[in-house]
């Protein structure tokens, strides 16, 4: 067991650090440092423009998506180098938030299922964020029960014709492409009648409508398909094999969301370090200390768990479903922390204006964003089901629709 860098790791770190010191957009550091829990903040600058600039710069110098093969725009780096890069990139990494879905989920799916020609065409531009991708999975009638989706794809010569609706599609409004899962056969049990494609979001018949979120931002969208034509060459995997393909995407989703996940611990620590309560200094208060210890133990536990996963990855082992714990722990914790943090500040805790209350804007953003963490990418309940069934081997949920052709499944409306 050894936590230090090996000689090669140290050398790699020094190289990364030097490049970042020379090239990073230092003018954004203040706003990025305060940013988080919702859209990235870049002060007077446009966040998407700044994000693409930084990504492009990294790509040109070989620092984008460094674990990818060189021919796809990466650096062929090891998992450990990628951890080191993330540590060194620090707050600038927040700029890439809008690219996580494309680079962390769509790309691995393309690598596993796209043709060589398509990989060569799309992956390098995905790495440099010249093209941004989104994930069109959830529908109004199927979120947790993803395999219950209804968007139809029907074959027409060399094309497929898509009709239906997706929802909660993060970043669809600034995406160039997306991967979309559709139903190609409603007469077989639900998991078997699905097929995956990728499509140009500017295709005729695609309509994107932003949804205003509970926290006031607009990160996700409704996406409508009205006779949208997709060439068969943009199919990923077999006809009827879409469920298998989606598992690749979702497994990577948990890795992408789970590693280095925000917990809110640094925010609560900073708050209580400087705060006075009616009874004295917050950090001396026994209730505060007890909660702080619990939250520190949880966030350290997550950090150490992902360090173990990285060690396993670098030995060539696959990360298992146990990585589901990251988001499960962090989401609830962040919500608890935000609530407690506001509670320590009297009525002033409700103030969002950073001019009036230094800490509140960030903690308020955390309060209002954290419910989403417990839903996106698999709800808390679904993650517990996964742990129970796939890690602990407990018997499967009773499924009312088991083995039934999709067209016969009751839908409640």
């Amino acid at each position, binding site marked *: 067991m050894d936590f*230090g860098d090996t000689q090669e790791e140290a050398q790699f770190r020094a190289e990364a650090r030097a490049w970042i010191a020379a090239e990073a957009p230092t003018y954004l550091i203040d706003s990025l440092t305060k940013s988080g829990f919702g859209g990235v903040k870049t002060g007077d600058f446009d966040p998407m423009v700044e994000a693409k600039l930084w990504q492009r710069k990294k790509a040109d110098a070989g620092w984008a998506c460094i674990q990818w093969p060189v021919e796809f725009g990466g650096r062929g780096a090891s998992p450990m180098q990628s951890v080191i890069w993330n540590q060194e990139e620090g707050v600038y990494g927040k700029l890439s938030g809008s690219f996580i879905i494309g680079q962390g989920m769509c790309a691995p799916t393309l690598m596993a299922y796209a043709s060589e020609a398509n990989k060569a065409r799309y992956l390098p531009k995905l790495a440099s964020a010249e093209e941004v991708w989104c994930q069109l999975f959830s529908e109004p009638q199927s979120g947790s029960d993803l395999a219950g989706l209804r968007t139809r794809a029907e074959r027409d010569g060399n094309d497929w014709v898509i009709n239906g609706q997706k929802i909660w599609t993060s970043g669809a409004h600034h995406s160039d492409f997306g991967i979309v899962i559709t139903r190609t056969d409603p007469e077989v049990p639900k998991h078997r009648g699905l097929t995956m494609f990728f499509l140009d979001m500017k295709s005729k018949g695609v309509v994107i409508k932003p949804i205003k979120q509970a926290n006031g931002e607009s990160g996700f969208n409704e996406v409508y398909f009205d006779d949208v034509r997709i060439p068969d060459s943009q199919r990923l995997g077999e006809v009827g094999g879409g469920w298998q393909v989606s598992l690749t995407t979702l497994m990577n989703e948990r890795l992408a969301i789970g590693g280095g996940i925000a917990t809110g*611990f640094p925010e609560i620590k900073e708050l209580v370090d400087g705060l006075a309560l009616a009874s004295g200094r917050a950090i001396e208060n026994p209730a505060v200390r007890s909660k702080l210890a619990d939250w520190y*133990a949880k966030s350290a*536990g997550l950090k*150490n768990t992902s360090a173990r996963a990285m060690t396993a990855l670098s030995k060539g082992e696959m990360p298992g479903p146990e990585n589901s714990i990251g988001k499960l722990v962090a989401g609830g914790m962040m919500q608890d922390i935000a609530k407690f943090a506001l509670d320590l500040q009297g009525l002033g805790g409700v103030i969002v204006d950073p001019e009036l209350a230094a800490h509140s804007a960030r903690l308020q953003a955390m309060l209002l964003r954290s419910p989403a963490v417990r839903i996106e990418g698999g709800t808390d309940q679904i993650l517990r*089901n996964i742990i129970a069934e796939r890690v602990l081997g407990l018997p*499967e*949920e009773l499924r009312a629709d088991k083995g039934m052709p999709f067209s016969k499944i009751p839908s409640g409306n």
Partner: protein
Amino acid sequence: MNFDFSQDDKMLRDQVARFLSDQCSSKTVRGVLEGNAAYATEVWDGLVSMGLTGTAIPENYGGVGAGYLSLCLVAEQLGAFLAPTPFSSSVYLATEALMLFGSDAQKDHWLPKLAAGETIGTLAVVETVAQTTAEDMALRFSAGQLTGKKLIVADGGISDFAIVLARNPAGDLGLYLCDLQAGGVVKTAVDTVDPSRNSTSLEFNGCPAELLGTEADGWAQLETVYDRAAVLFAFEQLGGAQSALNMAVDYAKQRFAFGRPIGSFQGLKHMMADMYVALKLAESNCYYAAWALSTNSPDLPLAAATARVSATQAFQLCARDNIQVHGGMGFTWEFDCHLYYRRSNYLTLQLGGLTEWEDKLVSSLASGDAAA
């Protein structure tokens, strides 16, 4: 970075697990629990013959010198099998205190005996039914003798010697080595929530004793010993938590209600998923603490407190909810659920309870700059 145990450490762990699964069934644990013996002597003898009492003792003192990473995995297995032996008192506490603070003569005298398992030692601290503070320590050391009472000493009834926290005539606390065989000590068994581990009060009526090492700096020394032992206790808790979770999962797969296995009910599934999450967090924190212990990292106090807090949480949760998963059977003497429940609460209060370790955690956070 390489955040995993070595193959050698894992082989040792498996070897210990095999031995304990042969020799330390719940019947063995119950033998002690029901008062047939003060500890499981065959298990102890087996551990000794495998050299485990000397795992972290250097070879020049008769130990194996395998180090703390190995010892952590041994502790995990002892916890998993609820081993009713004085291993923690003798190895994590007495041996540690001697190695850290003993004079050369004391180390020469005691360490080889401890390594060989000929001698069992313990640490005697607690005097009142309250959280322990330096101010409350009343037991006195004067003119080479100890006078006063330690209310509850783990394995006090089994140990050959004790390292005793006591106050000297100058008012300073020191750690004193006292041969419990020499006479003048009244040992009285104490009933506790976990009778599968020996607990005894020790009354010293002018017993000969000597200062451990050269300085009467007992409280600081105690804290150092506790930080190190906390990691090893945390591994025992981790092992216990894993066993309790396994027991719950196995039962939930077999027991039927409403025409289906109870493990298919989401109320239970989610309960066990939460047990698993607590266990994983504890495991990862324990691994980090093992590293900090094995390298004497400046991070040790924080890492130890973190491991201790999450391992305590994990074992308490797993032991408690294992009973719930078992329904009425879980509340019988016959089923083993209560063995874990008892042990989890017993281990929580060794070295001070959860509240004290939470407090220590925050104090070490405040003094360092570790941001998780």
